[in-house]
């Protein structure tokens, strides 16, 4: 994983898999208003994924468009982080995942907006506003559930404990990338720390740090997600609405 193709692919896969997971909430949200909010966030992620994968296809120069990259790769060819492919769990787990993801994506897109690559800069400038809203929304729920009832506090803490190890992979050094993710860890901690404190939650200790997503080594969950996402396109290649 070195060139701009790998970088655009990794970011695009993060957004695509996050969109697919969030889309699973549609019609299952805790209330109708939240159902719409989660679908909106999923569509934001999908929009960023389309731009990034289209650009990745152009950088590769092998004639693959966004659909070829999204629908015609196996799980070993996906470069998303493990965090986004984890199952949704309960609503607390989904919000914990979204908090960590958006607290990573926001400074990433903001830094991209100022990078030398004009296409990535334009994508970053567009996506950063959406990420700011995602982060705001996730933090709002984490605070309410963490500092809510005894039961909501218990489940929110369990959710944060469950997904925290997967945050470390996001900031693995990537020398030579348009933006080195290792430089974003400070922004992440400066935002997530106070949110957890305000939510009366304990920041989990750093220890086990699962990784491998950027090298195509995924959890068992990704292939199931891809099977559902890709089945239509593989059964009916080129199908359109």
């Amino acid at each position, binding site marked *: 994983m070195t060139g701009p193709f790998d970088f655009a692919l990794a970011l695009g896969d993060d957004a695509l898999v996050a969109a697919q997971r969030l889309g699973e909430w549609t019609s299952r949200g805790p*209330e109708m*208003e939240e159902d*719409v909010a989660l679908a909106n966030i999923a569509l934001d992620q999908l929009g960023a994924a389309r731009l990034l994968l289209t650009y990745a296809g152009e950088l590769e120069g092998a004639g693959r468009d966004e659909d070829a990259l999204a629908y015609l790769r196996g799980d070993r060819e996906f470069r998303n982080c493990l965090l986004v492919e984890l199952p949704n769990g309960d609503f607390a787990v989904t919000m914990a995942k979204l908090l960590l993801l958006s607290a990573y994506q926001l400074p990433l897109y903001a830094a991209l907006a100022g990078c030398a690559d004009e296409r990535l800069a334009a994508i970053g400038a567009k996506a950063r506003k959406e990420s700011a809203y995602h982060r705001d*929304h996730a933090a709002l729920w984490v605070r*309410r559930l963490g500092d809510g009832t005894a039961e909501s506090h218990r489940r929110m803490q369990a959710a944060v404990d469950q997904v925290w190890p997967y945050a470390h992979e996001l900031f693995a050094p990537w020398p030579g990338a348009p933006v080195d993710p290792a430089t974003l860890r400070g922004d992440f901690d400066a935002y997530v720390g106070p949110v957890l404190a305000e939510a009366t939650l304990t920041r989990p200790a750093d220890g086990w740090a699962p990784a491998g997503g950027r090298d195509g080594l995924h959890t068992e969950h990704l292939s199931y997600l891809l099977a559902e996402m890709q089945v239509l396109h593989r059964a009916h290649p080129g199908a359109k609405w």
Partner: protein
Amino acid sequence: MSATDNTPLWEVFVRARRGLSHTHVGSLHAPDAELALHNARDLYTRRQEGVSIWVVPAAAITASSPDEKDAFFDPAADKVYRHPTFYEVPDGVAHL
């Protein structure tokens, strides 16, 4: 406990452009004001309908009752002198 116990009703007002006033666009359920504002953004400004949103607890609104419609509004019907067009402007009055 029903969902409405935790999530009261809020009325949503959206200002379409600078210079216009906020207009009532609908209502929604939310547990508190901040979430009501988020929900209003997602439900009522998806297609660039506005530049500013107000949310107001529906319970805080005091409304006139349809039963009182006659007492409230009918007496205004025959008071034509409340309209400026009722008055004739005397000759020689300038700047009116």
